[in-house]
């Protein structure tokens, strides 16, 4: 069927929820029209939020800098269309709180800032490439939004030998990366070349789950001439988690409390690679991304190329509106995504999907007592004991919980998904993590 189909790699643990990808997997990427207002939050990445550098009334072009990076682990924010800044104020953020944002009223011309100039990556040094990636505000597009330039700046004592491209898309329902791999193959491969040059390495592997045979085939065909490997992977969640993917592809395990560079690997999402290609070749910052708008609660599931700051409500309108009463709105995937209070918040850099479910699509959620079945332990990709940590967390016994390594939990949600008592295991572990981190800070 596909390349290396007989040789599917994977990691230990995990599970495969019904993936629901069929609704949008065959839909080609469409460009979302310009909304009447764009709300661009200053906090769209892990790390310090950007600092606004425009005022009400400032005229901006598409790609103009509107928020400056504050600190090393931070990235700048750019206008995603041309127009006028009409407000700099707290607006409802996908996190569920009002956070500082820049509101732009588009002028309809949607013209790029003329100061943005492209360059041939062949002529630039690794440092110049890296600064272009930082200036373009590139973050991990898989959803975690970790600033890309930080991952590309390993300390000199760490020897990197492998670049892994994450095309796994193990979250159910999401198909954005799948479509990018099919339709933007060239941009992804160009981005990989740039990443290899920045890191000064040759080996690059693209990991793709076996439920996307068309993407595996297309990527493998075009990557062969560039000395880039494509590795088919068994279909299993959370294979797209960084450390699980490294384990699946290289067999190396990232030690507890360290980063992938510890085992000589850097992982980037395929969407990030495509954005890096634009940032270097065209000089264009990250102002738009592909989002899967799907789930039984929307009439026509689609993959849309969306300007950052477009409201979720506008996205749903582009998919012919809601199908029935929404009971749950999730930004991202159903396993790790963020439930939304309403359709008011804007799409941001980490928005990989918008899922809408009606009441009848949701399971009954009445928690009972733990029956000690141990299924959460079996599926945990980190090999923790979720039920034990959660039991301690419920009693506020955080020192005891800390003995079971909750800080290594990647919050993938497998334990909560599998739990026959529907206990909120991940939430309990997160609660314990927050308490343990707070205690560490005060010590």
């Amino acid at each position, binding site marked *: 069927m596909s390349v290396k189909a007989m040789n599917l790699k994977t990691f230990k643990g995990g599970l495969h929820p019904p993936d629901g990808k069929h609704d949008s997997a065959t839909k080609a990427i469409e460009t979302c029209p310009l909304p009447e207002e764009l709300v661009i939050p200053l906090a769209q990445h892990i790390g310090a939020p950007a600092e606004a550098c425009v005022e009400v009334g400032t005229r901006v072009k598409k790609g103009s800098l509107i928020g400056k990076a504050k600190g090393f682990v931070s990235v700048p924010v750019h206008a995603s269309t041309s127009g006028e800044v009409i407000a700099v104020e707290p607006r409802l953020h996908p996190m*569920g*709180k009002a956070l500082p944002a820049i509101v732009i009223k588009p002028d309809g011309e949607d013209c790029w800032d003329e100061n943005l100039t492209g360059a041939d990556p062949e002529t630039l040094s690794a440092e110049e490439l890296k600064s272009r990636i930082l200036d373009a505000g590139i973050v991990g597009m898989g959803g975690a939004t970790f600033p890309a330039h930080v991952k590309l700046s390993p300390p000199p004592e760490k020897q990197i030998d492998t670049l892994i491209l994450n095309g796994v898309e193990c979250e159910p329902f999401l198909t954005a990366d799948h479509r990018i791999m099919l339709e933007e193959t060239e941009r992804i491969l160009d981005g990989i070349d740039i990443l290899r040059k920045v890191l000064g390495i040759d080996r690059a592997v693209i990991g793709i789950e076996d439920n996307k045979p068309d993407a595996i085939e297309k990527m493998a065909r075009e990557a062969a001439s560039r000395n880039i490997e494509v590795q088919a992977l068994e279909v299993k969640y959370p294979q797209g988690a960084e450390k699980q993917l490294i384990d699946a592809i290289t067999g190396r395990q990232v030690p507890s409390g360290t980063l992938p560079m510890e085992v000589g690997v850097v992982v980037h999402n395929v969407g990030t690679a495509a954005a890096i290609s634009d940032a270097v070749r065209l000089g264009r910052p990250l102002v738009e991304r592909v989002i899967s708008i799907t789930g039984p609660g929307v009439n026509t599931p689609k993959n849309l190329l969306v300007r950052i700051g477009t409201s979720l409500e506008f996205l749903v309108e582009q998919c012919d509106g809601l199908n029935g009463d929404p009971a749950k709105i999730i930004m991202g995937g159903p396993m790790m995504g963020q*439930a939304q209070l309403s359709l008011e918040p804007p799409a941001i850099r980490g928005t990989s999907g918008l899922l809408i479910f009606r009441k009848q699509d949701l399971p009954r959620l009445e928690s009972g007592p733990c029956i000690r079945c141990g299924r959460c332990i079996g599926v945990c990709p980190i090999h923790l004991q979720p039920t034990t940590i959660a039991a301690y967390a419920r009693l506020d016994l955080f020192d005891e919980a800390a003995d079971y390594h909750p800080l290594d939990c990647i919050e993938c949600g497998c334990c909560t998904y599998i739990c026959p008592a529907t206990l*909120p295991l991940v*939430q309990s572990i997160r*609660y314990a993590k927050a308490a343990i981190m707070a205690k560490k800070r005060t010590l």
Partner: protein
Amino acid sequence: MLASVLTLGGIGLFAAIALGIAAKKFAVEVDPRELAILEVLPGANCGACGLPGCGGYAKAIVDGSMSPNLCTPGGSDCLEKIAHIMGVEAISADPQVAVVCCQGDNQKASQKYRYLGLEDCNAAQKIADGPKTCPGGCLGLGSCVRACPFDAIEITAEGLAVINRQKCTGCQKCVASCPRSVIKMTPLTATTHVLCNSTDKGGVVRKYCQVGCIACQICKKTAPEAYQIDNFLAQVNYDMAHEAEVAVEKCPTRCIRDFSTGYPEGSSFAAPTVPTKKPGQAA
């Protein structure tokens, strides 16, 4: 036979003598007053005095570093006994009780989202600042109930914490457990309280709560000495608490309550018969 009896007996004798000497030589001197005070303290180890347990407090009273009137659960009886033991005059501290400054249960106050997670206010508060639209309202998930060593708090069927004024000893454990600081310490003798914790403007409060303070100033106009308005929230001036009661009937949202006439709606607690009960004679 004889050898083993002698050997065992010898070991026993030696150990007895050694232990006897050690007991004399390393004896820990305990002030008899400390033991006597420990005897009269309630033994709840609640922490109201500021120390982790009764033993520590007894020691602190004896060495003079703490005043004998800090044990709120023990109340005046306990204070008198301690004062007698220490030979000092019993000067009681004003007894305090905790009050949940919110009446917005699930019927009267709106929610941003339906919360299905861990039954714990601190855990819920971490998710988009808690399900209740009001940023200061009681979440009703019972963190205070679990913190209370005296079983003085209940959660009503509609999800509101209510504190029993007879059972509350003023230990403040609930105050520390509440992520939204809804629970406040008030003098036991004051029975009239503003049961709202929202500092939003009146129009905003009206949108999410039927019984929130809208800072309309009517209470202040009715009893100018007894009320003050800070941050769009009325507060009783507890120095003039006896004058506060007249405004209860005037408050348009009924967020001012006089506890001598009963607890908030939905509570199973009976109205306190003696509102100014003496601490220490509790149930």
